[in-house]
């Protein structure tokens, strides 16, 4: 009997993920052993502590470039950058998750499984929310971190499930409008499972083609394999579908508006910022490492998906009447812009990473502000209710206007610099058609944002204008971070662009 050779493990390279996973596991133990009254404080400090420690570990690792655990994990510049981005955006969105002043007991309920409007469900309305959301969030973030540095497709699949399952659960925990929250969770779960199946089938076909699931192995296999090209093409397509689903690209975007609307807004914010970063981190790595040499085959198809995503996302955003659905479609359109970066391959990796950070902060700020507009029913997300808010709440409206202008890509906001950087590097990579469609669709997309601005300032207030609640320091900090980063990256983006440039290309050895 042969001895199983244990692969060498570089614990230093894995440290950031180990810390976050470890904190998540400790969080579960806290749920089991800590007294109920203490759990919230312990969990919040543990979560933030774990994430900050993970971030420190990433900063220490910043120059690392290594493949470890037998090729399962590839730590490289872009991977570390993405991990850092996910952690930072995660810390910011934690401010929304831990907010307990806007809603008594926080934005979550204790149990997701109670049938809506049942007695148990009504009882838990007044009880404090589940503190399990914190370890769940940590697991999701750790899974996303692993997803961005996966060196082979199986690790990637495991990571995909690790970060998806907690998100499915979190979606169903909204304190208000229980029914659409549960519906969102179920839809997301069913469709997510569906997409995972595509992903896994793609992995199987690619294994059949290249004889390996490692990304670099597939890259070499493309040049040497004697198998039929059909295996490669079909495998690539199915794999891409699984990834495009998470990235919310058309026609795999259908879940996005329903889930964004139904999920508790802090979770929506987490998905819009972190999941987007993770999904595109995965897409960028897969296409840049495994399939760069076959670019001629898939580029036209992915370019078509990008065009569809930009056009459909921006046009449908025009027709929305709910602010969360509007932001959902805007996130679909932004996925289209990011796909332009994916199609442009190496030339646009840096600007795609920059875009993810810029967009992530703006969207966190925007969703944080959505949580503030409330009436007795909870958040008032229908746009008609937002009419005339500028009269009573000028500061709120001014900040939201700024974020909307940022999304619309007006100069002096990160929306302009990030789009400019992304489109110019795409044009430089000979993707001029995509850039033209991108610029045109961003004009269309400016319209819904403008509609919100007009609504805030120019329309007369309705009969029951909701109030803008005063949140605790946590949500204030999130809004401040969103607005400040949107502004700073719009005025002086070069420091972040330098970091992105230093991150270099994906490690393809």
């Amino acid at each position, binding site marked *: 009997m042969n001895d199983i050779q244990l692969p060498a493990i570089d614990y230093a390279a894995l440290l950031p993920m180990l810390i976050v996973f470890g904190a998540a596991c400790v969080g579960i133990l806290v749920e089991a052993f800590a007294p109920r009254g203490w759990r919230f404080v312990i969990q919040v400090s543990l979560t933030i502590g774990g994430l900050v420690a993970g971030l420190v570990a990433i900063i220490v690792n910043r120059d690392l470039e290594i493949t470890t655990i037998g090729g399962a994990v590839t730590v490289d510049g872009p991977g570390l950058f993405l991990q850092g981005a996910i952690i930072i955006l995660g810390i910011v969105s934690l401010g929304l998750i831990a907010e307990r002043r806007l809603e008594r007991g926080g934005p979550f309920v204790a149990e997701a499984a109670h049938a809506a409007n049942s007695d148990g469900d009504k009882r838990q309305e007044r009880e404090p929310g589940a503190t399990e959301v914190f370890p769940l969030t940590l697991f999701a973030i750790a899974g996303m971190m692993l997803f961005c540095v996966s060196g082979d497709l199986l690790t990637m699949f495991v990571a995909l499930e690790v970060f998806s399952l907690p998100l499915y659960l979190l979606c169903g925990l909204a304190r208000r409008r229980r029914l659409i929250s549960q519906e969102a969770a179920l*839809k997301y779960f*069913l*469709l997510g499972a*569906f*997409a995972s199946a595509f992903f896994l089938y793609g992995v199987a076909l690619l294994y059949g083609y290249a004889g390996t699931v490692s990304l670099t192995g597939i890259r070499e296999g493309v040049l040497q394999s004697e198998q039929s*090209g*059909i295996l490669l*093409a*079909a495998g690539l*397509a*199915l794999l*891409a*579908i699984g990834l495009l*689903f998470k990235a919310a690209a058309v*026609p*795999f975007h*259908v*879940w996005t508006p329903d889930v964004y609307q139904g999920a508790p807004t802090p979770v929506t914010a987490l998905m819009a910022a972190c999941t987007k970063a993770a999904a595109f981190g995965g897409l960028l790595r897969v296409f840049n490492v495994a399939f760069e040499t076959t670019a001629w*085959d*898939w580029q*036209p*198809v992915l370019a078509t*998906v990008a065009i569809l995503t930009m056009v*459909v996302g921006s*046009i*449908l955003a025009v*027709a929305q009447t709910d602010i969360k659905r509007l932001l959902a479609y805007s996130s679909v359109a932004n996925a289209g812009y990011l796909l332009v970066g994916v199609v442009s391959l190496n030339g646009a990796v*840096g*600007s795609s990473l920059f875009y993810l950070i810029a967009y992530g902060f703006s969207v966190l700020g925007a969703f944080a502000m959505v949580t503030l507009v409330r009436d007795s029913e909870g958040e008032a997300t229908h746009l008609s209710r937002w009419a005339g808010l500028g009269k009573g709440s*000028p500061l709120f409206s*001014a900040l939201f206007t700024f974020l909307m*202008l940022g999304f619309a890509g007006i*100069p*002096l906001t990160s929306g*302009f*610099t990030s789009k*400019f*950087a992304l489109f*110019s*590097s795409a*044009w*430089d990579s000979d993707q*001029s058609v995509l*850039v*033209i469609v991108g*610029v*045109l669709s961003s*004009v269309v997309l*400016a319209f819904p944002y*403008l509609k919100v601005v*007009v609504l805030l*300032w*120019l329309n007369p207030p309705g009969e029951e204008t909701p109030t803008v609640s005063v949140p605790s320091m946590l949500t204030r900090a999130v809004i401040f971070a969103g607005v400040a980063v949107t502004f700073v990256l719009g005025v*002086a*983006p*070069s420091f972040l*662009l*330098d970091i*992105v*440039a230093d991150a270099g290309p994906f490690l393809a050895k």
Partner: protein
Amino acid sequence: MDSITYAPATGALSSMWLLVAIPALSATVLLLLGRRADKWGHWLGVASVLASFVLGVTYFLQLRGIDGTGNKSLSVDLFEFIHIGDLNVSVGLLFDPLTAVFVLLITGVGFLIHLYAVGYMSHDPGRRRFFAYFNLFVAAMLLLVLGDNYVMLYAGWEGVGLASYLLISFWSDRPAAATAGKKAFLINRVGDVGFALAIFLMFATFGTTNYADVFNGVLASEAGQTVSAGVLLAMGLLLLLGACGKSGQFPLQTWLPDAMEGPTPVSALIHAATMVTAGVYMIARSQVIFNANETAQTVVVSIGALTLLIGCVIGCAKDGIKRVLAYSTVSQIGYMFLAVGLGGGAYALGIIHLLAHGFFKAGLFLGAGSVMHGMKDQEDIRRFGGLWKYMRITWATFGLGYLAIIGIPPLSGFFTKDPIILAAFNREGWTGWLFGSAALLGAGLTAFYMTRLFVLTFHGRPRWQKEGEGGAHAASATDAHGAHADAHGAAIARTEDGRDIQHPHESPWIMTVPLMLLAVGSVAAGWLMSTSVVDWLTPVFGEHEEGHAHLTHTQVTIATVAVTVLGVALGYLLFRGGTSLVEQPARTHLVRAARNNLYADRFNELVFELPGRLLTRALVWVDNRGVDGIVNGLAAAFGGGSGRLRRLQTGYVRTYALSILSGAFLIVAALLAVRLG
């Protein structure tokens, strides 16, 4: 042309960023302090623009001190803005003769407008906010003309767009203002797309967006044919699209007259004297690109000629005092486009017409505001008449502006418009006759509609009733033009025969002093500009060359003056006896078309808005019902009965799954097709 180099700025000029920073800082302070700054905020706004003006004059004098052979283009690099891959965009500023005249125009005229607004907005509770936006506008406009690369130009470009949007919809409780603001924003975005694509194209072609590098690249490619003519043409046309959006040129002219919904006439003024000239600036700045491509130049000239006629024709048919002036702006900018499209020495002619226009149009708009101020915000010229007795300063200054715009010698319009018409006639080939005649016809039409405006407003018998006279008991009726007239919410009382009851009076000194200063400019500036400013701009545009002489200077001058006098005479004879109080039914198609803005809005609605709306509706339908909907819809269509079409609700998971599955099928099929095909 030799290659273009910018020398690093020294001395006072190295602090030229202050020009932008001072008004920007003032705007920030005014916005952040909120109501605490209500008492003194407007004076801060005025002072910041005055400071910029003083700085501008200082820099101008320093630039003038550089003797003949020295490099008069001074640049300063502030910091790196975007650096990614090969792309390097820095925040850099450039001060050259062209920028200098714009800085003086923006800060000089801007200062007078600020001063005037202190009086005009004195009763408005939002005055501080208004000055904040106004400062923001000045800062963005200065950034626009000071930038040393196209990205800075774009940043300023969007900045003035934003400020103008805020100013147009300033009186947001008026639906017309909100709609006009939206329209301006959207049409400008269409132009901005062109501009943005031009920048990307530049970056891809030359690897940079700096003026000097791009222009040298174009010059080098002219010599070595390294860049194809198609690319240069595309670059020129895309830039032109941007310029047309901002400057209200055909086919994007419709937003400009609507923009007059802003606080009268102050924000209307930025849409007349300063912001809308940004397109002219952009083309003049990009002269190297346009010079390199004759087709692009021809398009610019054609758009200029067409727009100047469109503006004149519609201007003849409008009754609102601001509307007429707005269309005259469209038409005058048409002249500037015509000039900069002609190339060569005509660039300078376009710029001097722009400067002269800045003065007299500012005077006219402020005069219009002064009239409205004294006439309870009525703006329908049918309801004025004989006002010269009641507001003499306004009458005199408005009259000088009027004589200047129609080009009566020796006022400024004569010295600046006349050379443009001459240059148009002397364009090579038959197009010279075409464009020259258009420009000449425009001069006649301008004289006609401006005479109509002037005579109906200030002369003839009053078509209103003085307060407390005639024993008329006021029948309180809402004005037919209520949306325009009751800016401050008050309906104007009417007599029984439908005339307004008015109490006309002259405006306070803070409004009349700027009027007088601008009138002096309208009178004196023309001669000054036609010589010294052209010389001043020579380092930027090169020497003026005489073209083919179809006509001599004297012939053109005589023709222009003759046509102008004819227009004035016609206008005077037709309208000296006044006019009816309400619009008469149109008897000819031309009048009907002109009253409907030559159907430009209708055209936009049919060609752009309708398909857009249909596409949106179709996509929403598909998105709501998913592939199920399409399949069932097809089944119903083929099965021949709506009974089969099950009504599908949105949001079924199976619908979504089917949509994903179909997408998956398509993608797999497409990839296989690419792979095997």
